[in-house]
């Protein structure tokens, strides 16, 4: 208990449930193996489905012959591209996928045919019997190759070469900013792509229930390990041509997602179609290799950054360019491209900022959102770049950062509204807790001791700070409806059932709903029954992405619960002869605050209220406020009702003879506002630290001869428990005025500072810079050997990021915008109560939707 008390933010409200270190509501079923995941589902007469995937990174399909496979006994259906020709994609602006390839395959793993058979062995045999004739095309496997070969087109639809999306923005007066600088520095960085590696591989079961009386012919149910049942619902309905009313998508227990289960997938669509054709349930479970091929993971990004500063460290201007390796399809890539630029001004108060981003198609598995979605790469670049600047200017890296931190309740140069912000406190906390200053002061003594003992090991500490959104301010498809809704039903026995589309992928969103409703209604969380992530039973929640669920579903739940509480209190007030505003709910009772003896049990109150008002059902919903972003095209990526902040200090040990890096400890301070459950927050912080550690030092989705080089979790390196460093979580900050009970996000933000903190610590230890992650021991050793080489020796040059030289101007029209133009910056911030009712929402439709429907002209889009 004490450990968790320590983690409590200072100003917790007088809550009974909120802020308590309770176990997750599904903890027992999960750890005892009782929880049902998609692959656990077995239905009578179920068939086994699978996909035949392309063996070539880029090829034209000349013919597909399924005859031999069809003739194999036990094969019930085979479909190919023509059977599902309708295009889809998660973003309305990137509808570039088909469930099965038509004409062309674009990466090794691109699905070509799907089979349903009576058992897995027959399935495997049938897949082998399908004959596909290909004409192999040259493959483009990197950003540089994609830029160098506009003649080899991966998508005919791309307007210029293989450029999927290019954007260009200038906020404030950038040239003037650089002119005013005393010092300007430029750097190139590269962030290698990586996969989410969820422990549960993707799986789904589809069931078709025919009904000859129904003009549609029947109803379809899909159980799938997805983070976004609502979006899957939309896309499956579209591709299959089944009205949404006849389709039900359910996410059962999901064994981790991290962004990898946020797209609609070919295997989901094919399972549905195979089920419809055979009239029997069909299951498709992906192998680990298929998870690497489905991917949608972290984009490899090459970055160039230029910053101007005053001698005292005040930033005068920043120019940032990103080149994203998108892989073969759009996925979330347009949003990712924006995200590589959007949050720089949310961490540091930049007076002038220019951002140019470009995403390229390559013949690799499509990239998409992974924890931190498009922001870990620039965060790495910015934080290492600033560290170099601090060294150049002889400034303390902490002071340099402090001088530029974004301030609470301000407006950024790119128009984003900042409310609660404890970034400075995060920074101070990690510095104090890690003993940073003492560590740096003791360096000479430590080095002398290492020399004396002939030890090749050197220690270093590095630091970085970051920001993340608490939910995207805009939905993925343009609409004016709530982002999240919750319904609650009370029954006479005192039971409480909560319905919400929110999808628990292990992060604990279902538990958070239980805590919040329990707090509001004054009952214990165990009493609450939860129905979640079911497009038929539950109202829409957009999904588990962009760290939005606690904030948005939480606010919707508070609203729904308060509506019921009002009814209960008014019925109880009458019976107890106490004015309703003198009543409180707690410990399963409704009682008078003036005399707690005057009380009714929760059940009694429910029965009185039901007698008086009829069935007790309520709904609540949430949409983010409007006034949180600028009014330029593309302003829809970046705004959020609140931002979380983090700071990290890493302590590393570098073996200077072998280049091996050991992270000894990570200190992570995180501004989560009010922790709804500090235990779950600490879990997210630790999970982030662990993932960040892996990305910094080992994870890489790399290719050889057009193929994923290491598509197994033996060869693709993620840290084991033995590698994972000690992690100290420090929760800071004040409750956010709009967050549910003041809560903010914790699922992604704490990841962001970890990679640059480790990179900076390596520099601090041995004086070398590796400007590309992962920082593998071979790169470290190469840099060390280059730095130490004696005259006469000819070591390999240190690893360097090769710059991209563009022969043409940036392929997007520059959009210039300043807060002054819109008059936003001058306005005092209106703070609304977070749980704004949906009906109150204004009509204003900013042009800044992340992903405007494709029919809108795309200003500033691809040239």
């Amino acid at each position, binding site marked *: 208990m004490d450990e968790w008390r320590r983690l409590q933010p200072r100003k917790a409200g007088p809550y009974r449930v909120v802020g308590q270190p309770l176990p997750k509501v599904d903890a027992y079923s999960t750890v005892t193996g009782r929880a049902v995941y998609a692959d656990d589902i077995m239905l009578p007469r179920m068939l086994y489905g699978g996909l035949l*995937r392309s*063996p*070539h990174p880029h090829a034209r399909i000349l013919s597909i012959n399924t005859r031999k496979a069809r003739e194999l006994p036990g094969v019930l259906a085979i479909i190919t591209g023509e059977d599902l020709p309708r295009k889809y994609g998660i973003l309305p602006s990137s509808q570039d996928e088909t469930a099965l390839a038509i004409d062309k395959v674009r990466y*090794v793993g691109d699905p070509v045919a799907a089979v349903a058979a009576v058992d*897995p*062995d027959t399935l*495997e045999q049938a897949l082998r019997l399908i004959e596909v004739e290909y004409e192999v095309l040259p493959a483009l496997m990197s950003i540089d190759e994609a830029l160098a070969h506009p003649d080899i087109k991966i998508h005919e639809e791309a307007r210029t070469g293989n450029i999927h999306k290019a954007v260009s923005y200038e906020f404030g007066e950038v040239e003037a900013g650089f002119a005013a600088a005393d010092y300007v520095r430029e750097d190139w960085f590269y962030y290698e792509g990586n996969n989410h590696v969820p422990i549960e*591989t993707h799986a789904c079961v589809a069931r078709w229930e025919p009904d000859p009386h129904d003009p549609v012919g029947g109803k379809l149910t899909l159980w799938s390990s997805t983070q976004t049942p609502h979006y899957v619902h939309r896309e499956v309905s579209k591709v299959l041509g089944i009205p949404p009313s006849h389709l039900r998508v359910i996410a059962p227990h999901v064994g981790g997602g991290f962004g990898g289960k946020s797209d609609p997938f070919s295997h989901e669509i094919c399972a549905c179609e195979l089920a419809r054709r055979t009239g029997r349930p069909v299951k498709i*479970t992906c*192998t680990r*290799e298929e998870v690497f091929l489905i991917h949608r993971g972290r984009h490899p990004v090459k970055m160039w950054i230029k910053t101007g500063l005053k001698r005292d460290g005040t930033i005068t201007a920043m120019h940032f360019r990103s080149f994203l390796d998108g892989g073969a399809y759009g996925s979330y890539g347009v949003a990712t491209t924006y995200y590589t630029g959007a949050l720089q001004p949310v961490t540091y108060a930049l007076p002038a900022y220019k951002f140019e981003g470009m995403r390229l198609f390559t013949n690799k598995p499509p990239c998409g959102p992974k924890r931190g979605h498009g922001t870990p790469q620039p965060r790495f670049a910015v934080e290492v770049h600033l560290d170099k600047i601090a060294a150049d200017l002889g400034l303390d890296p902490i002071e340099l950062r402090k001088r530029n931190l974004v301030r609470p309740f301000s407006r950024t140069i790119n128009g984003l509204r900042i409310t609660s912000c404890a970034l400075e406190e995060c920074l101070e906390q990690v510095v104090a807790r890690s003993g940073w200053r003492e560590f740096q002061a003791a360096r000479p003594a430590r080095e002398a001791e290492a020399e004396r*003992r*002939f*030890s*090749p090991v050197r220690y270093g500490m590095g630091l970085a700070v970051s920001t993340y959104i608490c939910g995207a301010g805009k939905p993925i498809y343009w609409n004016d409806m709530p982002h999240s809704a919750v319904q609650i039903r009370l029954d006479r026995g005192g039971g409480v059932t909560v319905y919400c589309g929110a999808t628990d992928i292990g992060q604990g969103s279902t538990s958070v709903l239980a805590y919040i409703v329990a707090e509001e209604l004054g009952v214990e969380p165990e009493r609450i029954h939860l129905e979640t992530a079911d497009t038929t039973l539950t109202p829409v929640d957009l999904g588990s992405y962009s760290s939005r669920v606690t904030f948005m579903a939480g606010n919707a739940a508070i609203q729904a619960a308060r509506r019921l509480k009002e009814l209960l209190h008014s019925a109880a007030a009458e019976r107890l002869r106490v004015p309703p505003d003198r009543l409180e709910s707690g410990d399963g009772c409704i009682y008078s605050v003036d005399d707690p003896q005057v009380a009714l049990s929760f059940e009694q109150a429910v029965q009185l209220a039901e007698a008086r008002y009829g069935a007790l059902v309520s709904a609540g919903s949430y949409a983010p406020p409007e006034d949180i972003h600028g009014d330029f095209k593309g302003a829809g990526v970046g705004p959020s009702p609140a931002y979380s902040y983090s700071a990290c200090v890493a302590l590393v040990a570098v073996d*200077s*003879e*072998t*280049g091996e890096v050991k992270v000894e400890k990570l200190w992570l301070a995180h501004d989560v506002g009010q922790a709804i459950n500090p235990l779950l927050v600490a879990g997210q912080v630790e999970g982030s630290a662990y993932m960040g550690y892996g990305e910094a030092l*080992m994870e890489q989705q790399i290719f050889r*001869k057009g*193929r*994923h*080089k*290491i*598509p*197994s979790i*033996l*060869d693709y*390196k993620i*840290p*084991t*428990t*033995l*590698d994972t460093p000690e992690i100290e979580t420090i929760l800071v900050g004040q409750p956010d005025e709009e967050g549910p009970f003041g809560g903010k996000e914790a699922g992604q933000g704490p990841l962001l500072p970890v990679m640059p903190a480790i990179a900076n610590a390596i520099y601090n230890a041995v004086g070398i810079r590796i400007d590309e992650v992962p920082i*593998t*021991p*071979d790169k470290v*050793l*190469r840099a060390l*050997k280059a730095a130490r080489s004696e005259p006469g020796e000819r070591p*390999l040059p240190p690893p360097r990021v090769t710059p991209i030289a563009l022969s043409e101007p940036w392929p997007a029209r520059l959009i210039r915008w300043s807060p002054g133009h819109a008059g936003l910056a001058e306005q005092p911030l209106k703070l609304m109560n977070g749980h704004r009712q949906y009906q109150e929402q204004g009509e204003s439709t900013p042009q800044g939707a992340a992903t405007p429907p494709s029919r809108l002209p795309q200003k500033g889009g691809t040239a």
Partner: protein
Amino acid sequence: MLRLPPFRYLAPRTLSEATRLLAEEGPAAMPVAGGTDLLPNMKRRQFTPAALVGLRRLHELKGISGSPEVGVRIGAGETLTSVSTHPLIRTHYPALALAAAAVSTPQLRNAGTIGGNILLDTRCNYYNQTEFWRHSIGYCMKRDGSICLVAPGSPRCWAISSADTVPVLVVLQARVRLVSVRGEREIPIQELFRDDGMRPYTRETDEILSEIWLPPAPGWRSTYLKLRRRGSFDFPILGVAAALRREQDGRIGDVRIALGAVASHPVEAEEAMAHLRGQQPTPALLQEVAALAAKRARPLDNADLTITYRKQLTPVYVRRALDLLLGAEQGSGAK
């Protein structure tokens, strides 16, 4: 999940029954001990045996007995966990305990045996891939194809000997016993290996490895260092086994150094050993010895990390292993 190909499973109760089954079934049958190497390989279709002869129940393959004075016998069916925790081995053959404990993960060490480790299939990251992957890139000669994808002009396969215990057993001068219906033979462990990634063992398909014999240990110190990326799971990308005995006056009476994961077989560093034998160890001499040993490492681009890196680390690991055996006072660490 990948699925096993169809096969028959035979479960003999005695060694003689097992050898008889292997002989009867012919080369299409394979023995299986812990299955931690063979079964994953079968799922990826590197092997598609018609029958597996299970060795689990054979009491003849069990037991660790003996003493440092007369030597120790280890049943080939003993798990890596029991080898790494056995007091006799930990005290008198510490390199073997270290190597066994460095294999993969606790779960796999509980199932995997020392016999299976010795006969681990050679590895290559063009080969240890699924059937889909190998089909996609075009099969190599080790299975289903005709060329080597790492060294396309090469007439042979360079898959890597990757078993942790093997270089250790070489420096300990272990002997192994092979049993078949045709009789028994006991050979020095070096003779079990061939410098050939495709046929890395001289074991005949009807032979069962029944036991490992370690010679007496007095006066010997031994150690094993493993290069890998993570603290668990990973196969070695370099293994250095070293054993030595010192004279009264501090000179090196005898020394043995073997490298794992640098070739298709465990590699003994003869030149390096000869350079050190009979000498007083000094930091400079140890550097020379390490450099000589490293000459034997010729990695190819078919394992984790870069060739240069694996090559550069060989002398560092050899010197560190010798430092460990000579005690800290030698202090030949980095300047």
